[in-house]
């Protein structure tokens, strides 16, 4: 029998505590309760902005942690999403990556919110994320939280199908100087130098990096040689600072800028000079009871100019204005000689509170205002700014009804000048069969408002103010919100002393009013235009299975399988008259990426050598508005070793991406051949 007793050490402590207790009470300090001792240290926060464990979250979550990032064969952030079920990651060209979840992956994949430390990097001007400008180095990522499923109830309109939060490393985690470099195939040339230290009361990490590659090798298109000019060269500067004026207050700030010189397009490439900068501040205040209030403000600015070569109309048409086939009533002239500069700017301010309302009830409530402004003669046919201010207010509640039942409910109300006021919500119930097995059912009703580009696009080639030579894309005047109704059943299980975790998600997503393009007649040279409008309907059904096995610190195994089916239509051609149904539909089923499989294994030997491999299989796919690509299996390999010296370390790695036959990326002529990347890293503490 082990009766608790006054052992000597306890007498020692007790004697002082008996004396101390009245003193502390007299000092007005609250007594310590079991809540102080059992307090949860945050684990996952992206889903509801509440600190929750995976068993409590109302959605499926994949966490790419530091261990996985270091062991992975990724050379770029987007490579990491090849480890996430339901995600498609592809190269539109060497300078542009596409990442999408479930939805059709086109050149500018939308419907996915991407944040860096809570700052949205989704660009209104492209209705997509420009991965090359976000300026985050792989080595500076602490972890990535990926919510698989709509997260609009917490993140707003753009977290329509999924949401990603890239959490960068705290400046406190590192010290001293770090130099990193990668060289290899496709003229890959990446280097970064960063310093972590202190300036006065601020801890910071400051990084200067350059990244570049020459993209895909020249290929062929319809039997003809094709010069692929899709290289990119970018220079980034980023600093992350942390100031903790008191225990219950901390302020984090970030500044960054990226300057890129890249080529964009497919088959025809245009040089783009792009600048991106951001400023971010996040003030956190903790209350005595552990409640939190946050004020988050940021500003993003994207500015680019395309080096479009002015051309004569006759050169474009291949007809001289003296020819009887000259189609215009006006003489030849030089076009594409106007302003090719575009700009996108975002200001966002959010106030958020995390409260424990009762023993079993927690809430995160927030209110925010955002202003987006875009300017582009090319995209909007006007030199004027186009601006929109939107407001959002949300609350997410977690009610632990019993030890076995957790309910989550969230609602967000958004107000925009373009589409008025609307509300998205999510309801979820987690049933904890026991600590190791959790079942989840959830429903989502979400809306996605059209971006400034989708709402205002007017892409025209003009002869003058009165004569339009070619209308490429024009936005319909009354585009409505996209709508999603989704249902999911989830399961999270832990086995073998929690060394093995299993996550399954069975889902059904009904997407309505999806914004795409329909072809319509237009009085220009080719007599048609694409009208951006609510043209698509999609039903997506599928299953995702993810397993992570970490039997020891030396061995890591991650795997997933995803199956999805899209059924739906796109209105390809407008009806002959307003009010009539679409005259030609396109079946969207063939654009569905039906099966993806991924497996990553990593083993670290006692001497410090780490071997990793990743296998990815994608079924055949016809990319929406691009090419059919065949199914492929890609195998990546990596060997890395670290040597520790006194106050310094050296890390060498060799990564082989696609150690097999070339496969196609987005366009048939984008052939991803075997790439060898040599990595070198030195740290001085």
């Amino acid at each position, binding site marked *: 029998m082990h009766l608790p007793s006054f052992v000597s050490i306890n007498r020692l402590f007790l004697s002082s505590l008996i004396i101390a207790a009245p003193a502390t009470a007299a000092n007005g300090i609250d007594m310590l309760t079991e809540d102080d001792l059992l307090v949860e240290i945050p684990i996952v926060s992206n889903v509801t902005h509440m600190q929750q464990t995976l068993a409590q979250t109302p959605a499926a979550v994949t966490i790419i942690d530091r261990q996985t990032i270091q062991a992975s064969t990724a050379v770029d952030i987007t490579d990491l999403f090849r480890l996430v079920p339901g995600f498609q990651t592809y190269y539109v060209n060497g300078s542009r990556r596409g990442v999408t979840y479930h939805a059709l992956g086109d050149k500018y994949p939308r419907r996915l919110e991407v944040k860096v430390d809570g700052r949205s990097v989704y660009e209104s001007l492209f209705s997509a994320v420009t991965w090359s400008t976000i300026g985050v180095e792989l080595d500076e990522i602490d972890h990535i939280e990926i919510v698989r499923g709509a997260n609009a109830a917490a993140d707003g309109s753009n977290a329509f199908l999924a949401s990603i939060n890239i959490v960068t490393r705290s400046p406190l*985690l590192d010290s001293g100087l770090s130099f990193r470099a990668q060289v290899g195939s496709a003229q890959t040339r990446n280097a970064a130098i960063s310093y972590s230290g202190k300036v006065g009361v601020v801890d910071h990490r400051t990084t200067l990096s350059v990244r570049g590659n020459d993209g895909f090798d020249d290929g062929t298109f319809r039997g003809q040689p094709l010069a692929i000019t899709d290289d990119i060269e970018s220079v980034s500067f980023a600093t992350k600072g942390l100031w903790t004026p008191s225990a219950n207050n901390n302020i984090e700030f970030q500044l960054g800028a990226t300057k890129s010189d890249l080529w964009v397009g497919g088959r025809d490439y245009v040089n783009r000079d792009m600048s991106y900068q951001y400023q971010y501040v996040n003030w956190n205040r903790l209350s005595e009871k552990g409640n939190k209030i946050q004020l988050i403000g940021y500003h993003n600015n994207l500015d680019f100019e395309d080096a479009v070569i002015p051309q004569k109309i006759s050169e474009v048409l291949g007809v001289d204005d003296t020819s009887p086939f000259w189609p215009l009533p006006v003489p030849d002239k030089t076009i594409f000689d106007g302003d090719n500069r575009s700009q996108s700017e975002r200001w966002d301010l959010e106030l958020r509170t995390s409260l424990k309302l009762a023993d079993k009830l927690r809430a995160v409530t927030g209110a925010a205002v955002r202003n987006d402004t875009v300017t582009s003669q090319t995209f909007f046919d006007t030199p004027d700014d186009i601006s929109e201010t939107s407001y959002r207010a949300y609350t997410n509640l977690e009610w632990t009804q019993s030890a076995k039942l957790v309910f989550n409910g969230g609602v967000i109300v958004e107000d925009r000048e373009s589409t008025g006021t609307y509300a998205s919500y999510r309801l979820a119930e987690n049933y904890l069969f026991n600590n190791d097995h959790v079942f989840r059912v959830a429903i989502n009703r979400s809306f996605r408002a059209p971006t400034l580009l989708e709402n205002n696009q007017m892409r025209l080639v003009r002869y003058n103010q009165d004569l339009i030579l070619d209308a490429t894309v024009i936005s319909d005047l009354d585009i409505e919100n996209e709508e999603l109704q989704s249902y999911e059943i989830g399961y999270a299980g832990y086995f073998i002393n929690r060394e093995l975790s299993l996550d399954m998600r069975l889902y059904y997503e009904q997407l309505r009013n999806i914004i795409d393009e329909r072809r319509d007649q237009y009085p220009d040279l080719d007599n048609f235009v694409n009208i951006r409008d609510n043209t698509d309907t999609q039903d997506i059904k599928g299953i995702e299975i993810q397993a992570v096995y970490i039997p020891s610190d030396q061995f890591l195994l991650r795997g997933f399988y995803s199956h999805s089916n899209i059924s739906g239509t796109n209105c390809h051609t407008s009806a002959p008259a307003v009010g009539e149904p679409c005259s030609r539909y396109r079946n969207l089923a063939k654009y569905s990426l039906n099966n993806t499989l991924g497996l990553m294994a990593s083993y670290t030997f006692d001497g410090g050598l780490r071997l990793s491999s990743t296998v990815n299989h994608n079924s055949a796919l016809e990319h929406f508005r691009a090419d059919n690509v065949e199914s492929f299996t890609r195998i990546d390999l990596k060997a890395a070793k670290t040597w520790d010296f006194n106050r310094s370390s050296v890390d060498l790695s060799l990564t082989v991406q696609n150690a097999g036959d070339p496969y196609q990326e987005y366009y048939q002529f984008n052939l991803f051949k075997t790439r060898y990347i040599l990595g070198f890293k030195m740290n001085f503490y």
Partner: protein
Amino acid sequence: MAFTHPAKRLKPFRRATVIQLIGLLLLVFTCSYAFADRKTAVLFVASKSAADYVEVLNTVQGHLEARYPQGYEFKSKFRPSGKELASDLPGADFVVTIGTAAADIVFSVKPKVPVLSVLITENAFLALAEKYYGSAENAFASRVSSISLDQPVARSIELAKLLVPDARDIGLMLGPASLPRQPELERHIADMSLRPQFVSISAKDNPIHTIEPVLRRSDVFIPISDSRLINIATAKWILHLSYRYKVPVIAFSKSYLKAGALAAVYSSPADVAGDAAEWLKNPKSKSNGGLYVPAYYSLTFNESVAANLKIKLNAEQFYRDQFSQEIKQ
């Protein structure tokens, strides 16, 4: 006056005595039968019906039912009102409070039966004992006992020494509530031939700037549990700094461990229940109250952190076996 034969006079006396004796025997028999069959009534009063509280309650019941299948009867109340409690107390032989709020309610009515408080910190128990009984000693005299939730720091210090045998400097963070422990801790650490490096922090201090110099020169760092604000507000920075300077952290909760500490010594609900069941089973423990250190404890390690710090971990039992006799279970 009538003369009565003594024998005759005795007869009614004998008859009455016999009847009385038989009655007494019957009474003794029925009482002893009743007492023999009567189960010990344990009244559980929990602060709330959250998972940890329910687990403690169920596990204590499970322990006692397994050992004495017919010995106990249980009644459970979750944060009852004073009136509700007053109606349940008369039938109880023991009261077990689970959580601080439950202790607060029960102490306020000063039950006549022995009381055991669990899932409560030493700090909270002593504050409540003073509030309702005038002092801890008075509470003990009223047969009020507590098994504290917080583990003795000595376990963490010895574990630190076992995990980092070359350690010389042990860093300890104290908050406003734990600051009075410093002299005792200092003596204990010195007894182990270690050098204590204390850092005290309040809500007004800059946590990074206060903690960093001490953590940096420590071989192992032990944050002492304090108020929720201090615990939450410092945990993240302590763990980040510990990663930066490769200084292992010995934590006081499983949650802290998962967030990045090397090891944790803490009382799990099962440990709390184990201690409570032992107390209930031991008749000596009810004659006088007392404040007891938990005999049971959980010892867990974060293998990823150990690998990062290049610390080779042994099996949990190794460390339990190596603990000095006075802090062993």
